[in-house]
């Protein structure tokens, strides 16, 4: 296979790239020259197979496909491109010498967005490309809005951690996956010691700054595949896939220690904050569920507070059950 001719960069810099798939080199060159003149970058393919490879590129949003090409026809390419999953829509203009109504209908039904007969009238092509760009622009706007809405609906806007609903969903999913894979899921519920005092003494803005700094410190110190979310107020929930109680205790202690050492600068003040952490692993439960995990974490967190704050407490419901108690134990 011949390599695709290298795309030209327009003077505008961020030019849109268009695939020209045509086995007729005269037609291909005419299209290329005009498209470059109008500020588009171009990729040339002289058969359907090359075109199909180019169409897989996520950045390729616009394509001019000749109907009759060796290996794969433009019509078949249209059908294929509509079947694959791409992050962005590819706008396709089918070019052909065929101009019967039935051919036009076949082309559009196969997935083409537009249709032009050859020889191409370049003024008309210019206008039709503008239409394509308009559709692509609308899709970009829609995707941007969708992304923004996703962030708004899943992230906590103060700390940028996952919000309560999302972190609870993750916990549910992790418990299910852990059960399937027979691996324990860990959870840590923590809060900032005497956080009300920070707000009362330094103001709510300083309190917000402390929460943001704690969130950043925790995010830096969890494992790549752990998930962290704001449960409510100053309470933060961390989900740790494939994590035994023993390992959980080590990680929790690492988080406690890192945050305790962290000096927080807010509004010209240098503050520090300590954390109390309650931990639970699903391996200690008969039938782990989101509610049971949260309940157990909560109890362990309460225990950490009782034990003097700035410490980690582990929940071991099975052991507690055996001992006839519901209290947690302090991690060594």
């Amino acid at each position: 296979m011949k390599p695709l001719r290298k795309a030209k960069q327009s003077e505008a810099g961020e030019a849109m790239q268009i695939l020209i798939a045509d086995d007729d080199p005269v037609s291909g060159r005419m299209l290329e020259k005009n498209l470059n003149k109008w500020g588009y970058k171009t990729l040339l393919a002289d058969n359907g197979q090359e075109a199909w490879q180019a169409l897989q590129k996520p950045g390729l949003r616009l394509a001019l496909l000749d109907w009759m090409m060796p290996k794969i026809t433009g019509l078949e390419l249209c059908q294929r491109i509509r079947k694959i999953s791409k992050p962005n829509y590819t706008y396709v203009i089918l070019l052909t010498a065929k101009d019967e109504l039935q051919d036009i209908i076949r082309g559009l039904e196969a997935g083409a967005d537009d249709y032009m007969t050859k020889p191409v009238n370049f003024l008309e092509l210019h206008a039709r490309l503008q239409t394509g760009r308009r559709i692509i622009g609308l899709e970009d706007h829609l995707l941007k809005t969708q992304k923004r809405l996703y962030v708004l609906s899943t992230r906590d806007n103060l700390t940028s951690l996952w919000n309560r609903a999302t972190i609870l969903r993750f916990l549910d999913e992790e418990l299910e996956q852990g059960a399937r894979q027979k691996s324990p899921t860990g959870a840590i519920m923590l809060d900032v010691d005497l956080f009300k005092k920070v707000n009362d003494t330094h103001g709510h803005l300083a309190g917000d700054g402390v929460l943001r700094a704690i969130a950043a410190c925790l995010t830096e110190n969890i494992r790549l595949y752990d998930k962290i979310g704001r449960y409510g107020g100053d309470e933060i929930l961390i989900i740790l896939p494939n994590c035994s109680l023993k390992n959980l205790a080590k990680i929790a202690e690492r988080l406690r220690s890192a945050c305790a050492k962290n000096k927080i600068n807010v509004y010209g003040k240098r503050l520090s904050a300590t954390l109390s952490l309650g931990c639970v692993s699903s391996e200690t439960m008969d039938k782990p569920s989101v509610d049971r995990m949260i309940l157990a974490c909560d109890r362990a967190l309460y225990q950490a507070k009782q034990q003097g704050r700035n410490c980690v407490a582990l929940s071991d419901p099975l052991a507690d059950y055996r001992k006839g108690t519901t209290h947690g134990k302090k991690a060594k």
Partner: protein
Amino acid sequence: MEKKPNEEILPINRAEALDRIGGDPGFLKELLEIYFQEYIVRIKELRGAVQGQKFQKILELGHTLKGSSANLSLPGLRQAATDIEMAGREKDIEKAKDSFSRLEREFERLKRHLAQFPD
């Protein structure tokens, strides 16, 4: 019956071709050079396809030559290529041979014309 080239119609409608590419004679020259290179490859393939009576190949090559001839406003070559495409579709070997000969004559006529009137 074998058609004779229409000597009254010029092998290239230069005004129309220039109009299509924005009036750039240098670019027309470049496109004609591409056409000539492509023609040499395609005519060889076409000869083989006609000799071997490979009708699908005859249809495809006729189609491609029809497209490039139309782009450059070469009416005689376009018509001969259209007839080749049709002969391939109709699986008519006599029509294919006849159109093939006409295509070759039209090409020679275009070469002579361009040699006589290069610009």
